[in-house]
């Protein structure tokens, strides 16, 4: 019987995911200050400032939380440990930060040297992470739908990063990179983000909220259908084919099926309590449904609603879901690591005060609607940003307070 590598005590030390989360929350605050500074002058998503600000959120906040969580969750969900997780996690963190800072600096100052440096470090961080996680997951014997979906998502992360880097390197050199940028966005949002979230959802939604399992059709077929659509869509975008709208629509329809299924499962869940995390899950999935519908409308009725879609998808869906996951993961991790050290005084409900979670959630929701209103009345943008900044500061405080709670109780032994 081969027992090598079989240890179920494989989670990384507490500090690994927490460092990622704390740094992520600092990027979130920087994101607020950046839009406060540049919001007025941006009129297209292809503006340099717009590209820089988008990546403070995607690379700085989303990617940090996702990678920190995967280092923690892969051993639990898949049952296989990362080799030398401390070294891997620190190297990825270091390269990701250098890459992200160079990227932002490059676009805000229009200096190519920073863009090229960022290409190098982002490849080192993200491709290394994707490949390492891919081969770690491959070791599992049980290739269930979550495993298959994760493997597919990581493959798309790999190609999405490569395409992003091609776009970045060729930027401004006479070679048109707009099509590559569009493929990069499609692959990262649908092949990586939505795919990863669907894989996590198959496990997390039934487990944490005691819902029915996702239908077998979705678990077994969603990942390859999305992959196939994405491959065709990418080829059609690069060749400027007339089929692009059709395949974008297919992508939106399948995303809508996923979000509506999740809403249905959550509505019929067996755990009765509505806490901040479930509110955020609901909010995220409602927004994903709206984003899919708005996207279909913008494809077929030529209306310019890019900013509406980016608010609904970026803040309403992706940010909300990540915020909700943080409020599930951080208190549990803190309590779990303390009780593993026989510190039984710790209780999960004390790690982050419930009132602060609710306050942060409520301010975020108001800011979200202010962002939507700002599409009609431009002056609302500043109210929206200030509220989102306050909400982000509370989120940052909540994460750091969890860390200090751990430190305080850990000192007692």
């Amino acid at each position, binding site marked *: 019987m081969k027992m090598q590598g079989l240890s179920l005590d494989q989670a990384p030390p507490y500090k690994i995911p927490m460092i990622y989360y704390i740094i992520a929350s600092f990027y979130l605050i920087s994101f607020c200050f950046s839009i406060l500074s540049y919001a007025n002058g941006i009129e297209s998503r292809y503006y340099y400032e717009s590209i820089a600000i988008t990546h403070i959120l995607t690379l700085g906040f989303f990617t940090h939380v996702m990678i920190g969580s995967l280092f923690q969750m892969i051993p639990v969900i898949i049952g296989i440990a990362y080799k030398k997780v401390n070294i891997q996690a620190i190297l990825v963190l270091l390269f990701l930060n250098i890459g992200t800072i160079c990227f932002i600096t490059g676009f805000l100052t229009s200096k190519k040297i920073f863009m090229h440096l960022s290409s190098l470090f982002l490849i080192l961080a993200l491709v290394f992470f994707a490949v390492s996680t891919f081969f770690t997951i491959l070791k599992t014997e049980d290739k269930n739908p979550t495993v298959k979906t994760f493997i597919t998502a990581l493959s798309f992360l790999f190609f999405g990063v490569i395409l992003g880097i091609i776009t970045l390197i060729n930027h401004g050199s006479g070679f048109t990179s707009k099509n590559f940028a569009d493929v990069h966005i499609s692959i990262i949002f649908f092949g990586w983000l939505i795919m990863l979230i669907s894989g996590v959802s198959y496990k997390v939604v039934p487990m944490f909220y005691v819902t029915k399992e996702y239908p077998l059709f979705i678990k077994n077929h969603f990942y390859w259908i999305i992959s196939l659509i994405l491959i065709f869509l990418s080829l059609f975008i690069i060749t400027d084919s007339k089929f692009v709208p059709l395949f974008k629509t297919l992508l939106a329809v399948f995303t809508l099926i996923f979000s509506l299924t999740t809403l249905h499962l959550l509505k019929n869940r067996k755990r009765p309590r509505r806490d901040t995390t479930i509110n955020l899950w609901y909010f995220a999935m409602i927004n994903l449904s709206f984003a899919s519908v708005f996207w279909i409308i913008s494809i077929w009725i030529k209306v310019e609603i890019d900013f509406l879609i980016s608010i609904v998808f970026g803040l309403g869906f992706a940010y909300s879901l990540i915020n909700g996951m943080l409020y599930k993961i951080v208190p549990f991790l803190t309590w779990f690591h303390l009780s*593993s050290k026989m510190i039984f005084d710790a209780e999960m409900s004390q790690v982050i005060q419930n009132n602060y979670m609710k306050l942060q959630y409520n301010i975020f929701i108001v800011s979200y609607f202010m962002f939507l209103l700002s599409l009609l009345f431009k002056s609302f943008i500043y109210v929206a940003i200030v509220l989102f900044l306050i909400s982000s500061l509370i989120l940052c405080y909540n994460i750091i307070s969890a860390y200090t709670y751990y430190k305080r109780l850990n000192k007692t032994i």
Partner: protein
Amino acid sequence: MTIKEYMTHNHKECDELLAQLENEVENANWDKVLKLSDEFKHETLKHFDMEESYLFPMFDEKSSTGGCGPTKVMKMEHDQARSIFPKIEEAIKDKDSDRFFGLSESLMILIQQHNSKEEQMLYTMIQNIFNNDNDTIVEKLQSYEFK
């Protein structure tokens, strides 16, 4: 039914009991809460005992880990879960629903991540080793007695 399916199904039954218990606390049906709390505790501890007294020793012997491999970690997590039960009983006695929900959340996530590791890995390995004796083992598990 395979060993893996039986044990996984048993996990789900315990999850549903905890969900029912939370439901009764939410509705402040404290009489029902007491009864359900006892039932949930009994079923969960019975499940732990099935593993610790029957399945894990068999697995350790056959896989030559001497009890130092994955089963040791699983037993530690069982102990972590056991340590929450007295606190839950205390919260129920005080009719303190806020504290109860904080504790039930901890227990729920602890058990879920624990179950995930067992279902993903350990039960798969147990199934592979004892596939030929599957029916005998499942029968024994179905009629398992726990005091």
